[in-house]
């Protein structure tokens, strides 16, 4: 009898079930419950009574508040259109032309990813601001124009990367067939190239729009009197302690992400199937006119980004820009009042913790979802949870965490104000991309590895550590790097969650800028850029080494 029960338990794969339930429980606590707290706040009045839609009515009846909705849509739309066009052309130049310096162009396009959005804005201040290098142009940086410019810088790398992936592989046969029919270059572009990327265009559009719509850094520095939702939410919560109105704005911030989620569901799956094993590589033909045009475009974008960096260097390394241009390192001696160098080390600590715990969480979760059979219902629930974070902007996560974790009755209240809450919010905020990376890597592994190991009586954890982990190492490193870099630059969620005891560098930059220590802000930005570039280099070297080792294993010596 006892034997029979034990057998049943073995068959249930108890250990796996426990792990899966734990992961899902953690996910629920840090994702679902805070969101619930946020939504309930939006429908309560200040006394905490249910108030229906009255908060929303108040919001839309107050012109000074509701104008932000239109402002946000306006700047997001314009910057998205610019980014989509620019990103496409840039990716096209790097994949379908014969311009020189492609690697240089590719890596400089990624520069904005390595810095907080606040820093883009500060760079712009140095260039177009009242005392900027190009102030003679008379452009009014503060307000709509500045925000748009900054959002373009922020969203361009995302647009470029997505288009790059879509354009990188082309089926040469289609172009050869078109050539053999004597079809003109423009028609070829319209009828072959454009259909290849049309779903990517939709995706890129929504990704950029959502990013711009929910960004806090750029409008914080450049907004002036031009209000957008992300700055409103901050003013409502941190300025006026109007939590209910903050929650209302928070739910509004969700709209584009939810919309893109729905459209994404509709569009996904239609994008594949154009490239098959029979596809041949596309050989790009010579065209001097085309290459000159695209080279000029790439050079312009690259130089702009380099100028942004140069401006930061100039600000950080001169005594008192623009009046005293002698070299100095004194701006790296940060004022204690705005965070000091401690904030930098705090950021490093937080980012490392996020990367370590996040990578483990993401990879184990993806493994449980991909490589276990049975647990149908639990896995369905897991699938739903894992699709959620992509729709959540950092500001919303930050706000919902305040509502949930700051409540005195919450037994998890103790993590409030510590590094832990920042790490958890980062993992949730940046969950989606690593999740896709991990799932993709695991899908590529033979699904029979587990079966073979089980037939040999090898325990599952051993197969996981000896087979799945080593074979997914490049993906694991990518996830680690992604989480680290993004944690270094994050502002949105952290702005609600940092405490006076634990301030991080990106927040410190914003405080330095507020206090007028813009040179120190530039100096701190450079430190962030430095560590992120180092991390990226480390990652690239590691992946190269792994590849080399794998090639050694393939080389025949027999």
């Amino acid at each position: 009898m006892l034997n029979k029960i034990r057998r049943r338990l073995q068959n249930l794969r108890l250990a796996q079930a426990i792990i899966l339930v734990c992961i899902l429980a953690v996910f629920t606590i840090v994702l679902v419950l805070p969101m619930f707290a946020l939504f309930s706040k939006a429908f309560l009045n200040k006394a905490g009574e249910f108030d229906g839609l009255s908060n929303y009515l108040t919001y839309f009846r107050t012109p000074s508040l509701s104008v932000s909705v239109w402002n946000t849509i306006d700047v997001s739309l314009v910057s998205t259109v610019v980014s989509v066009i620019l990103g496409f052309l840039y990716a096209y130049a790097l994949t379908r032309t014969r311009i020189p310096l492609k690697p240089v162009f590719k890596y400089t396009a990624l520069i904005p990813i390595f810095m907080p959005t606040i820093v883009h804005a500060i760079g712009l201040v140095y260039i177009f601001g009242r005392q900027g290098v190009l102030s003679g142009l008379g452009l009014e940086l503060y307000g709509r124009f500045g925000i748009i410019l900054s959002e373009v810088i922020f969203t361009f790398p995302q647009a470029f990367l997505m288009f790059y992936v879509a354009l990188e592989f082309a089926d040469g046969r289609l172009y050869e067939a078109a050539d053999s029919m004597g079809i003109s270059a423009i028609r070829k572009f319209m009828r072959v190239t454009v259909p290849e990327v049309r779903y990517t265009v939709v995706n890129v559009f929504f990704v950029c729009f959502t990013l711009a719509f929910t960004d806090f850094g750029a409008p914080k520095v450049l907004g002036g009197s031009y209000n957008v939702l992300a700055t409103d939410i901050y003013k409502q919560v941190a300025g006026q302690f109007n939590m209910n109105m903050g929650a209302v704005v928070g739910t509004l911030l969700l709209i584009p992400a939810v919309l893109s989620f729905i459209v994404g569901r509709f569009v996904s799956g239609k994008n594949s199937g154009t490239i098959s094993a029979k596809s041949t590589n596309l050989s790009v033909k010579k065209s001097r006119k085309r290459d000159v045009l695209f080279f000029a475009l790439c050079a312009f974008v690259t130089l702009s980004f380099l100028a942004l960096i140069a401006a930061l260097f100039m600000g950080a390394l001169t005594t008192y820009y623009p009046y005293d241009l002698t070299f100095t390192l004194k701006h790296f001696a940060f004022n204690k009042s705005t965070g000091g160098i401690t904030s930098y080390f705090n950021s490093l600590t937080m980012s490392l913790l996020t990367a370590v715990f996040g990578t483990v969480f993401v990879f184990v979760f993806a493994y449980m979802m991909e490589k276990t059979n049975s647990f149908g219902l639990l896995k369905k629930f897991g699938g739903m949870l894992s699709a959620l974070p992509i729709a959540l902007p950092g500001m919303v996560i930050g706000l919902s965490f305040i509502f949930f974790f700051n409540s005195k009755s919450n037994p998890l209240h103790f993590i409030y104000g510590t590094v832990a809450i920042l790490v958890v919010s980062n993992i949730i905020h940046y969950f989606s991309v690593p999740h896709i990376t991990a799932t993709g890597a695991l899908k590529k592994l033979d699904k029979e590895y587990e079966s073979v190991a089980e037939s040999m009586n090898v325990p599952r954890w051993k197969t996981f550590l000896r087979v799945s982990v080593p074979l997914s190492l490049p993906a694991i490193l990518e996830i680690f790097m992604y989480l680290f870099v993004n944690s270094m630059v994050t502002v949105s969620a952290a702005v609600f969650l940092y405490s006076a005891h634990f301030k991080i560098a990106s927040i410190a930059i914003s405080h330095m800028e507020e206090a007028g220590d813009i040179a120190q802000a530039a100096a701190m930005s450079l430190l962030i850029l430095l560590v992120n570039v180092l991390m990226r280099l480390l990652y690239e070297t590691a992946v190269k080494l792994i590849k080399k080792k794998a090639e050694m294993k393939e080389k025949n010596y027999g």
Partner: protein
Amino acid sequence: MSFLEVKNITKQFGRQTALGDVSLNIERGELVCILGPSGCGKTTLLRIIAGLETSDSGRVVMNGIDCTDFPASKRNFGIVFQSYALFPNMTILGNVLFGLYQKKGVTKDEVRIKAIEVLRMVDLLEHKDKYPRQLSGGQQQRTALARAIALSPDYLLLDEPLSALDAKVRVKLRGEIRKIQRTLGVTTIMVTHDQEEALTMADRIVVMNNATVEQIGTPREIYNRPATPFVADFIGTMNFYRKDGKTDAIRPENIKLADRSGVYDVTARVKNLEFKGASTRIYGVLPDLDDILIDVPSETADEMRLCEDSTMFLRLSAEHLVHIPAVI
């Protein structure tokens, strides 16, 4: 009591029936092929026997012990998959050792000796320090086999083990697998969709179609006495002749041929000839306009100077006629 008894297994995937009441018995030391077209449920059956999949109902009894609720790790079988599923980050020796190290109460030296022994058996000893991707498909296949037999399993399960290989390598490996299986005397179940593989290797064949077993028998029984129209049609080529709700059938190579009338029973017209090397296939038409296929040695066809529209005389001897109960 058989060494392995599969009793009334059923399995649904959503609305689709993968297995509908499948039963079979396998004796100790036998090599049994489960043969059927893709999607007939044969791989699902193998996975249920292995414990990698659970059945909706039915029992799997191994050597008298009901194993239905046992996980795969408790069933003591070795398995080889179509993809081989070799661990690419381990050497050939490492792949074999990975399972052996789990064994309790044996020293490291004993484990190594065992690994070397199986690698010698599959003739891969000299490649033991290479990685899977450095080997040819056939060598990888043998590595998977070595890994599967290293733990001295009671059962060896082979899931389409040869279908990823070139035709020539496949024929060579058939013999090798059979030889190793005989040497070890390990009870083996092999899933395949290749009838030639099944006919040449198996002691007994289980023919499956549409989630059910059509026939179980020796290769000769299956070929010469097919129990259902499906079996007759799926294995080899068969001429069917329907009359009064009954079906008679005869293999093309069992039809005798002559160029003039006499003792021969049926006249037919040649519609088309297909030269296949050693043999020639004749596409004929009977007087009642039914089609008939005849295989003759190419030499015979040449001697008889057969060509399109020529008349031939056929003998369908009773000993070769197969009566099939059901009608297709």
